[in-house]
């Protein structure tokens, strides 16, 4: 199985670990992430005003290119996924905007792509049962907080990866990997996202809520699908520790990294070294490596 793959800018730079570990895991699971021959930035935000068709041009260009390479497209970054999937829906459902966009990007794209998040590929194309079979290094005894963030779930009628209020897809994967997912109330809350640029205090507060909520129910590790979430959480951790007595920061890693870990990949290849909070002591402590 070969699935056209859109990495997105962040995965080419700071979130390289998300990209390489996902490709490695795919190989171990018997499918190939075929990177698009040509792609550009997705635009990084879905325009908030409904008449801003211009803001859809960049993702439309990605989509029209991808359609030439297949009928599905997978991506890893929550933001890319959100922007691409919603843009695709607009093109598919709104004849007028489709015409405007196609006229602008000089393509003839109809919205027929099926946009899948990597998690969906694992659930629907590979199957969690098969993932479970492939596990070589079960993450036994690790209490993991699965942090969804918002981009992966909302708006639910556009995204529909899982129940927006009570998702389980992430936990189901973690169970397949042998880990113990913990249920924490803030798992679908926002990390503060782009406010990292201009209002750090808000990010510290929101990311702090998320982490404290997870560690409060015993999480020893937080996993995420989103480079922005990962960045915000890790970045905020020291300040949160100062502000909240009793808070102990835990590592924040990408789900593909621990997927690769569980599938028995070389630990050095997973990009854990990019993390601020080292995961190694935890893994050693749990005798996983």
């Amino acid at each position, binding site marked *: 199985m070969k699935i056209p793959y859109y990495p997105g800018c962040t995965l080419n730079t700071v979130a390289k670990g998300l990209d390489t570990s996902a490709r490695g895991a795919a190989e171990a699971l018997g499918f190939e992430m075929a990177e698009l021959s040509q792609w550009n930035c997705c635009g990084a935000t879905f325009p908030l005003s409904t008449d801003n068709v211009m803001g859809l041009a960049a993702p439309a260009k990605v989509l029209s290119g991808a359609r030439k390479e297949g009928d599905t497209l997978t991506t890893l970054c929550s933001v890319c996924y959100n922007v691409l999937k919603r843009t695709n829906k607009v093109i598919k459902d709104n004849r007028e905007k489709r015409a405007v966009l196609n006229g602008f990007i000089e393509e003839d794209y109809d919205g027929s792509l099926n946009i899948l998040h990597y998690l969906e590929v694992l659930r629907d194309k590979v199957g969690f049962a098969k993932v479970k079979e492939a596990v070589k290094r079960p993450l036994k005894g690790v209490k993991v907080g699965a942090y969804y963030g918002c981009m992966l779930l909302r708006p639910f009628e556009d995204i529909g990866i899982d*129940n927006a*209020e*009570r998702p389980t897809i992430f936990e189901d994967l973690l169970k397949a990997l042998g880990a113990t997912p913990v249920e924490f*109330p803030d798992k679908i809350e926002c990390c503060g996202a782009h406010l990292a640029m201009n209002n750090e205090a808000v990010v510290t507060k929101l990311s702090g809520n998320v982490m404290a909520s997870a560690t409060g129910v015993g999480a020893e590790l937080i996993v995420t699908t989103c480079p922005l979430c990962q960045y915000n959480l890790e970045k905020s951790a020291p300040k949160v520790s100062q502000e909240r007595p009793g808070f102990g920061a835990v590592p924040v890693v990408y789900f593909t990294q621990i997927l690769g870990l569980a599938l028995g990949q070389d630990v050095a290849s997973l990009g854990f070294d990019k993390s601020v909070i080292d995961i190694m002591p935890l893994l050693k402590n749990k005798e996983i490596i």
Partner: protein
Amino acid sequence: MPRIGVFVCQCGNNIAATVDTKKVAEDMAKVPGVVYTCDYKFMCSSPGQEMLKQAIKEQRLDGIIVSACSPHMHEKTFRKASEAAGINPYRCEVTNIREQCSWVHHDQTKRVGTIKSNDLTRMTIERLKKNSPLTRIKIPVKKKALVIGGGIAGIQAALDIAEGGREVILVEKEPSIGGNMARLSETFPTMDCSQCILTPKMVEAELHENIKLYTYSEVEKVDGYIGNFTVQIRRKSKYVDEDRCTGCGECIEKCPFKTDSQFELGLTKRKVIYTPFPQSVPNVPVIDAPNCPKIQKDKCGACAIVCGPKCIDFKMEDKIVTEEFGAIVVATGYQLMPNERFDEYGYGRIKDVINGMQFERLASSSGPTGGEIRRPSDGKVPKSIVFIQCVGSRDEKKGVSYCSKVCCMYTAKHTMLYSHKVHGGQSYVFYMDIRSGGKRYEEFTRKAIEKDNAMYLRGRVSRVYEKDGKVMVQGADTLSGTQVEIEADMVVLATAIVSRDGADTLAQRLGIGYDKYKFYNEYHPKLKPVETVTAGIYLAGTCMGPMDIPESVAQGSAAASKVLALFSSDEMAREPITSVVNKVTCNACWDCVTACPYSAIERDTIKNRQGEVVRWVAKVNDGVCQGCGVCVAACRSKSIDLKGYTDEQVFAAINAF
């Protein structure tokens, strides 16, 4: 050759000012088939009508044209006069030369008005030549009513019809009548206890000589039409002989098995042989067969041993009874939307998140806690409680777009009940708008806020989660523009009122319409609020949409008055404007059956002498047909026609144009 008389009315000067009525009369005399014409000052006056009658007799007329005002005004008058003079009323037609000619053309020359009147009258004459005599349809009326649903609306309808001296069968799905109202604690805005006002009505219905209760029963099949419905009712097996049971309750006492109580909405358990609640009517227990070990595996049988009158029969089976009715009142009520749809509020996941109806049971002195507010998880008295309004209501995305109408009021009532029962407790209400239109309703909600210290927060709740034995409620307070988080002991959701499961199936059985929420459609939202498009079937209560107790009761009475009016005569007469099928040319394609808005067309067969089906043909049921003619235009082979507006009549009129 027909003998037609044309009477042109001057209507004082109303017509005569714009139309030369004398000339119209003269001109029409030249039309073939017309043997008598005249014009007169006021055709509708007594002398005018006398003139018409006399002309019919003297001139041996067989058809009448009155060119006068709109047929909506005096068609009935002239038809009646014609009938009195011995000709069929449907051989009398009215030409509208006032509203649609003289009055709208007084700016024109008199010649123009006269020409138009001539044209219109000539078209009517040609049409009249094709008019067949018709007889009014007489339908005998069976003076017995069926009321479906034994909630407050159905009980009220049944009682009123019974008081009017007519027989009623009241069918209820559950083992007892009472409906949702039986679950309520106190009722707004008077705060009288629901049971106290409902129970006497339930007993009255049980004891009334004109009312027969069919509890634990459902309507299976409905045939027929107004005045003559045939209904099959399934009387589910209670495993207890209703006639012999004394209601002593010994069997319930001795039954060793328990299961969740539906009446108490899972807040407590009940026995496997049970009455839903202590005041049940009839006070006859039923056995919950799927949970009864005796019925399932032939083990136990304790109830039968202790039963004095020996009225328990484990082999009892469902019975189908067929009854005939003249009218049907549908009062099947509502249910609450399944809360599980709202994951953000944690219903079903967090034990101490309950819905409004469950709170009613907690507050009810006959409820599982004896009227003390205790939370389900550990039985503690909640020191702080959050009420969330509009759960599902006014929420197009995840719920329903309409307002459930009673939640603002009952939530205010809940906060009052709470403050009276839990001293020092604090209640919070998240609301969108407080809607308290109604007599003494606004005063009531004000009282909850001002006297009973309910903290009203205008905003929505985003998340409910558990933390250290508390239920945490995150939400927005839009008036102060802040995010709030409340540490509550319990959360109550004011869940949307929705139609009953299976409401659509019943509607299809009855042939009545429903909206996209499966609430039943009234004939006209303002002027015919309890009628349906199917004559003889009426609606009452929340099966039409959310409403409160007084409205439901009023509708029950309104429906009853319609039924009594229908039952006031032995026959009902209807205009004979109905469709008729040409059986020779019918293709049996059933397009007419599909198109008919009234399900008035049936599939019928033609049989030979041996009784074998030779062919299928459509057949119009005169009792149901309302005469719209949709079927006529739908029929390609022109095998169906509408009496009073036949193809020939229309064709003749067009040709005379």
